[in-house]
């Protein structure tokens, strides 16, 4: 069934969009990532104009993250206090990121920067998670090996300490604020919610338990993505509500399944899957940059 999208001005198959939404929804429920880094390239691929794809996927991210968050709230795996601190950092970061983005656009080549950002961050994060999860699985299989307790590092020696009861942490608010700001900057430049950076940052930098990380990440992604959606809608008029609706119907259903799948799996398995996914997308983007494209020319609509 073909549907004509009023803002994107293209006609696409409705079931294809439901499928894409569903697939990304499953992933977002399982891993606590918004799925922006997957859904945006998929929309490019089926011929949605890039500006519309970027803006609309942020709206879809709000929906699937909200659906998954509710499931996490019921299981009390959301650290609201930590989420709020991260969010404050995130909003500061995305404002800075938008300024940086506009400055880079005035220099040209912003597309290349976005692609290189994707390759670099997906590659580094994916590889780190993959290695770490493999080690964790090896340790679990070999109980004779001594489990190394997480050491107290510089993160734990900073002032303004706060109690994060759900996470079981008593640390300074400065590291979460910094993480939030950094992710906010990247999110604005790369046009994603930032979950795939936030999740590992919370695990490895802040030392939060994996189960709490996902719900907390979703909590803050909803606000950042919602903020971005309204920003896109008011400045560029590129949010396509029909496209968003089809994606999010698939997405919310997928997210519910994803959350249940996630509960059944072990934390290490979950992390190794997310790592493979991140590395896969990274490889695809890197190949696009390295291999000679079949069509050297591309068209962009001039400013109207």
């Amino acid at each position, binding site marked *: 069934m073909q549907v*004509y999208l*009023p803002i994107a001005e293209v*006609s696409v198959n409705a079931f294809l969009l439901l499928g894409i939404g569903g697939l990304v929804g499953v992933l977002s429920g399982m891993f606590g990532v918004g799925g922006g880094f997957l859904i945006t390239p998929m929309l490019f691929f089926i011929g949605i104009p890039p500006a519309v794809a970027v803006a609309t996927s942020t709206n879809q991210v709000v929906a699937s993250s909200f659906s998954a968050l509710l499931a996490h709230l019921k299981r009390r795996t959301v650290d609201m206090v930590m989420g709020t601190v991260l969010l404050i950092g995130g909003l500061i970061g995305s404002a800075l990121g938008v300024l940086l983005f506009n400055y880079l656009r005035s220099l040209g080549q912003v597309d290349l920067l976005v692609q290189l950002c994707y390759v670099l961050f997906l590659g580094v994060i994916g590889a780190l998670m993959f290695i770490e999860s493999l080690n964790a699985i090896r340790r679990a299989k070999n109980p004779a090996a001594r489990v190394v307790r997480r050491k107290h590092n510089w993160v734990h020696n900073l002032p303004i300490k706060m109690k994060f009861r759900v996470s079981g942490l008593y640390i300074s608010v400065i590291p979460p604020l910094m993480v939030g700001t950094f992710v906010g900057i990247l999110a604005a430049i790369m046009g994603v919610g930032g979950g795939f950076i936030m999740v590992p940052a919370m695990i490895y930098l802040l030392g939060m338990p994996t189960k709490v990380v996902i719900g907390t990440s979703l909590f803050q992604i909803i606000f950042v993505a919602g903020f971005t959606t309204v920003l896109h809608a008011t400045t560029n*008029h590129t949010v396509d509500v029909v496209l968003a609706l089809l994606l999010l119907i698939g997405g919310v259903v997928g997210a519910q399944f994803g959350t249940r799948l996630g509960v059944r799996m072990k934390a290490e398995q979950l992390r190794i899957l997310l790592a493979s996914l991140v590395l896969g997308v990274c490889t695809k983007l890197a190949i696009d940059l390295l291999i*000679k494209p079949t*069509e050297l*020319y591309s068209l962009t609509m001039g400013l109207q």
Partner: protein
Amino acid sequence: MIRLILSLIFLALPALAEEEIVLGLSHDQVAITATFEGSDILVFGAIKREVPIPDQSHLGVIVTIAGPDRPVDIWRKDRVAGIWVNTQDVEVDAAPSFYAVATSAPMRDVLNHVEDLNYRITTPRTIKAIGGQVSDSLAFMNALIRIRTDAGLYQRLEGAIDLEEDTLFRTAITLPANLTEGTYEARIFLTRNGRVIDEYTTEIPVRKVGLERWLYNLAHEHALLYGIMSLILAISAGWGASAIFGMLRR
């Protein structure tokens, strides 16, 4: 001398009015609805004559349909430090968002070069003012035409017009689903030995209607409201799915 000029004018006038186009269109407008999948426009007509069919020269019919002009940037990638990046671009002031040209015979038989320049009939002639600091702007123009042809937006339909008895003609032109909204212009040319002897122009408005129209207007005129509406939709869909799944589990 004056007599000679007058007699030439008198000779020329009936020649111009001798053959005229009478046209019909299957659609006088195209409505883009939620389930729009593109549209076939049937262009048909007849050639009206006061005199018998001149048989010594070759008659041709050309039909063009052009979408609204839009500026476009054409980028070319080059290898820089091992990766492929956009290096050069050419800005086109105005290129039709859609262009189809159908003829009754091969293009070179129905249209000569000078008339093509005058009336801007073939696709390259419709692209206006290519600018930029590149030496090979022709390669960029060809790329623009190639990419849009692959997308079905530019169509060259040589010999697609049925011309019967040098009098009745008909052709169907397919408008793809990814149409730009605006006023489309249909032009029909009648040629003799490659020279245009009559031209007929009509407009086909292409408009979004119903829900599509309403959403488009809302997004542009009440952007904040539209943005908030999108968010509410997203939140309620997320909540709804969660509630339904919660009930199913019980």
